[in-house]
Each structure stands twice: as structure tokens, then as C-alpha cells.
């Protein structure tokens, strides 16, 4: 009898300790997610500003002249983009773990969408910039092209990059909508955060599809996505950093998820 009582006491003790550890890890995880989110929030506009300053749409000669004269800056822009891709992969994993208790399949889908966005970014954005550098690099075999042709080729890769942004934007939009739904249903985040994230996702969808279907509206759509995306993503990042998740509700949802195996 005494042994049985002692065993129950041990079990309670182990359970309480596990909860404290979980809470600590959860707190750390939410902070990591918040910091990563904020890092992207800072790095992305800085990296794209480098590109939009040096690359002049339609003007191949000026673009090449700018890239050659500011190659170090151009490479720093690439380094910034590369850092973003890597952060995206880690953030996809962290958000997956945080939101897995709400719906394992949906959290996995959201993480895959975000990871895909990172991969498309890396494969395309970085690659087009590398090709641009190769073309302006002056390798001997490029003498097969005259100056105007080389300039045109360099700008072609940068133009392609603009299209690629719409491609990864689709993956990112999907991620944001799923993330928004997960947050909305989670009970351990305020619902308004979920709504804001879904709006951000709608903005990216509108930009990606809208620019393909109606290129004339590209300017309006890029403004729209800024208005829709920044509040949702910024507030979510700050919430993760400052408030984190409601630990008890997260724990409850986690236990429910284990029971339901979903």
C-alpha cells in the first residue's frame, strides 16, 4: 500500500517537472520564433533595397554598370537573401512544433509551404543573381556576345528574378493562410492574430495571381500586400517575443492531440 502511494507520488512529481521543463522550452521556442520572424522583417527589405537600387527595370546598360561598380554591395544583398532562406527553414520547423497541437497535418502543411518558399527563393533568387554576376564578370568566352547582348542577358536574369518572387509568394501565401487558421483555432493565441495572418496570406495570393493575370495592377498589388502583410506578421512576431503562448492551453491542446493522434 505504502509502495503504491509512493509510486503515485513519484509519478505526480515527474509530471510536474515535465510540465515546468515543457514550459521553459516552449517559452524559449516562442522567443526563437519571434526573433527569427523579426530578423526576416529587417533583412528582407534591406536585401531587396540593394537589388532595387542597382537593378533598373528595362535599362540593361545602367543595371550592368551599377552591378559592376557596386559588386560588393550586390554580393551583400545576396548574402542577406541567403540568410533569409536559411532562417525560413528553421522558422518553418519551430512554427511546426508550436502549432502541432492544433492540427498536426495542417501544421506540417504550413511548415512544408514555408520550407518550399525558402527553397524556391534560394534556387531562383540567388541563382539569378549568381548568373548576373557571371555575365558581368568578363570571362573570356563571353566575348562571343557583344556588349549590348551581355547587358541584355544580365538584365534578363534580374527580370526573371521579379517573376520568381511571385512564385515563392504563392508558397508563402499558402503558409500564411494555414498559419492564420492554426492560430485562429489554437486557443493559445488571440484569434485576431489568426485573422491578421490570413489577411496577409490573402495579400500575397492577390499579388502573385493578380500580377500574372493583370500586370498593369502590379504597383497597386505590391502596395496592397505591404498594407495587408506587415501588420499581421509584425504583430505575430512581437506577440511571440513578448507574450508567447498561453502555456496551460497549449499543454491542454497538446494532450488532446496526443490522445486523438491527430
Amino acid at each position, binding site marked *: 500500500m505504502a509502495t503504491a502511494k509512493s509510486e503515485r507520488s513519484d509519478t505526480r512529481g515527474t509530471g510536474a517537472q515535465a510540465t515546468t521543463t515543457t514550459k521553459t522550452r516552449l517559452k524559449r521556442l516562442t522567443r526563437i520564433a519571434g526573433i527569427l520572424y523579426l530578423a526576416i522583417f529587417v533583412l528582407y*527589405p534591406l536585401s531587396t533595397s540593394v537589388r532595387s537600387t542597382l537593378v533598373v527595370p528595362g535599362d540593361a546598360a545602367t543595371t550592368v554598370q*551599377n552591378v559592376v561598380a557596386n559588386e560588393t554591395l550586390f554580393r551583400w544583398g545576396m548574402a542577406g537573401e541567403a540568410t533569409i532562406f536559411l532562417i525560413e527553414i528553421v522558422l518553418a520547423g519551430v512554427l511546426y512544433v508550436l502549432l502541432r497541437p492544433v492540427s498536426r497535418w495542417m501544421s506540417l502543411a504550413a511548415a512544408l509551404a514555408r520550407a518550399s518558399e525558402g527553397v524556391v527563393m534560394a534556387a531562383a533568387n540567388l541563382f539569378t543573381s549568381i548568373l548576373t554576376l557571371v555575365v558581368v564578370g568578363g570571362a573570356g568566352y563571353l566575348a562571343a556576345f557583344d556588349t*549590348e547582348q551581355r547587358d541584355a542577358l544580365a538584365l534578363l536574369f534580374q527580370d526573371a528574378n521579379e517573376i520568381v518572387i511571385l512564385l515563392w509568394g504563392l508558397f508563402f501565401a499558402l503558409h500564411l493562410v494555414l498559419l492564420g487558421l492554426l492560430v485562429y483555432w489554437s486557443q493559445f493565441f488571440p484569434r485576431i492574430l489568426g485573422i491578421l495572418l490570413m489577411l496577409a496570406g490573402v495579400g500575397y495570393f492577390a499579388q502573385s495571381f493578380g500580377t500574372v493575370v493583370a500586370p498593369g495592377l502590379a504597383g497597386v498589388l505590391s502596395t496592397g500586400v505591404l498594407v495587408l502583410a506587415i501588420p499581421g506578421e509584425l504583430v505575430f512576431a512581437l506577440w511571440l517575443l513578448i507574450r508567447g503562448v498561453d502555456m496551460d492551453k497549449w499543454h491542454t491542446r497538446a494532450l488532446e492531440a496526443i490522445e486523438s493522434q491527430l
Partner: protein
Amino acid sequence: MRKLLFGTFVVGLVILGVLAQLGSYLLALTSTAAELQATVNHIGPFATSGPHTVGVRRLTVDEAPIPMTVWYPAVVQAIGVPSLTYSYAINMLGPNSSITLATYKGRAEPGATPDMTQGPYPLVVLSHGFAITSSSYAWLAEQLASHGMVVVSPLHREYLDPGVLWRSTVTRPKDILTVLAYVDEEVKSGGELEGLIDVATVAVVGHSYGGYAALAAAGARMDTGAFTAACETAYTSNDPVVFLCDALVPHLNDVAELAGLDSRPTELWPAWTDGRVDAVVSLAGDAVMFGGPGLAELVVPVMAIGGTADTDSPFMWGTGLTYNHASSSRRAEVALEDAAHLIFAGECDNVRRIMTLASLGFCSDPAWDRDRAHDVVKYYVTAFLRSELKRDHQAAAVLALDDHRFPKVRYRAVGY
């Protein structure tokens, strides 16, 4: 303490992020109404494109002594060739570090085959404004090439630092002479420009400090006495030209040294001209450093165009001074009433978004629609150069008219 540090870190990151997002948004290029409304030239035959198709080539330092852009009459291009985009840009931080303020459509075909059947063509050397790039004047260069001239615009190696403006006082006229020497060589048998250019028929066109350079290359000479006297007058009346006085007067000894002179001349400086220059066009060109005596050395036909509200190259110290003091038997002055200095720079189909929110003066003018002003400039410059370089009597007749055909334009001329 840790919480305070963490809070500061987060707030700093958010502020940095918001500023970066805002900067990225404001620096993006966006279309303006100008792009949507195709420019319609209503004002006369010389404001519209000429009969020639235009080709463009950019020569790098590997191909020419200084980087330059060449616009020329070309053989008819294939139908459906997409239009070219030019940048209206300024070298802000270094001679190779241009910031595009706006972009606009051109119609030249890069690398097109020159049309030799009607050549050789007169040469026009186009000197851009201080720290502004050559392509910012492609709207004018294409116009002149379409009227059967070859336009060569050297890229003067400078950037937007008034502290080094004095260097350009020497290097710009030298650049123009370098272009003429280069063209001289390349029109010979086997050269890049063989048979394309008539090197005996030359005009120089320039905007702002390019206007100064054009006048100098055409025969005007600096005059220390006249310049310093003008600056003293300007200081007492707080005239905007004091900007130029501040940039040059303290460096006159340096200018003389860079020009290879033993000492600073007290009155007229030596000429930095080429005897082959037949005509000169100054667009809001600086002329105060020449003064009356220095401009009196100018004997080739001259056209001076300027905005009367120009505070960078004030009308009375540039355009007006040139017209009043040049010895040229044929000269013309075109005053764009209330126009500012940069009305002569590039077109603005797409501009940085920040320029649509704040009037920075690069693409906006207090009194003029940019396209309309460019049409007026094209009209007069084309007529003047056709008259002087191609002996076009119809163009000369236009210059002789003492009419008021354009609102907000004052025109006067002698010798036509």
C-alpha cells in the same frame, strides 16, 4: 536589467525593420501618369522625330578613352523590336555609383547597324549636367539622331559633391576635346565610326555645367576679373549664383594648376576650344565664370535656352548673359518662363515612389509640364542645329520668326 536589454533590442529591431520596409517601399520605381499618356507633339515639325531610325551604342573604357554613348542614324530595324528604357540618374556617392531617379522609354535600337547611305552625318557632342548621367538626355539625343546627326555624349567622371566641382571646370572641356580627337581617329579607314561622321561639321550641346563646358569648347574663355566682380555683386544681393561662386572662387588657383597653367590668370584665361566647333547650344548653362569679356570670345552661332525661375544656374547669369555678350553673328535665346533648372534633364515615366509623395524637383517643375517643355526644347534645338549644321533653310526661317507661337516662351534672335 536583462528584460530592459531585451526590450531595447526588440524595439530597436522593430524600428529598424519598419524603416527598412518603408525605405524599400519608397525607393521602388512606380509609373506616373506620364507613362500612361503618350507624348503628343503638337507644336511643329522640328519637335517631332526626324526621318531616321536611331541606333545607340555605349562605348566602355576598353573601347574609347572615356566612356561615351553614341546615338546615330541606323538602318530600319525589324518590326516589333521592343522599346529601350533609359535611366534619368545622378552619380550620388561616386563616379560609378549612379542612383536612378526615374526611367523613360526610348526608341533607339542598341547596336543597330549604322545607316551609311545618307552619311557622313554632322557630329553633336552632348555634355550632361553635373553628376547627371548621359542617358538622362537620351530624349534629346534620339531626337537629334533621328534628324540625321550623330550624337556622342561622354560620361564625365564626377559625382554630386560641390567640393570637387572646380575640377570639372577643366576636365569637362578636355573631355569634349578628347571626344573630338577620338572621333577623328575612328572615322578613318578601319575605325569604329568609319564613314559615319563628318568631323568638319561639329556642334556642342550641354546642360548646366555641361552648358559651361559646351561654351568653353566653342570658344568662350574664363575671366577671373569678371567672375570675381560678378560674385561680389551676387554676395551683396544674396543671388543664388553664390553657390557657384562658393564652389569655384576659392579654387581658382587649383583650376589653373589642373589646367597646366603657371599661375592663375588675372583676366582672360586661355581658350579650351576646338576650331572645328560650328555651333553651340547651352541649356541652362553656367556662364558667370566667363563674364562679358569671356563670352565675347565666342564667335560661333549660339543658342541659349533657360528657365527664368532657375536658381541653380540663374537665367541672368547663364542664358541671358550668354545671349547678351556672345559675339556670334547668329544667336538665339529661348526663355521658358518660370521653369526651373532640371526641366532639361530626363523624362519621368517611372519614378521612385518617394518622388510622387514629395516634390524633390528632379521630375517636377513649378510651372511646366515636363513633356511640353521637352517638346519646346526639341523644337528650337533641332531647328538651330539643322540650320547651322545641315544648312536647312526651312529651319533657319523658323529661327527668324519673331512670333509668340508658344505660351510661356520668350524668344529673341539676331542674324536669322
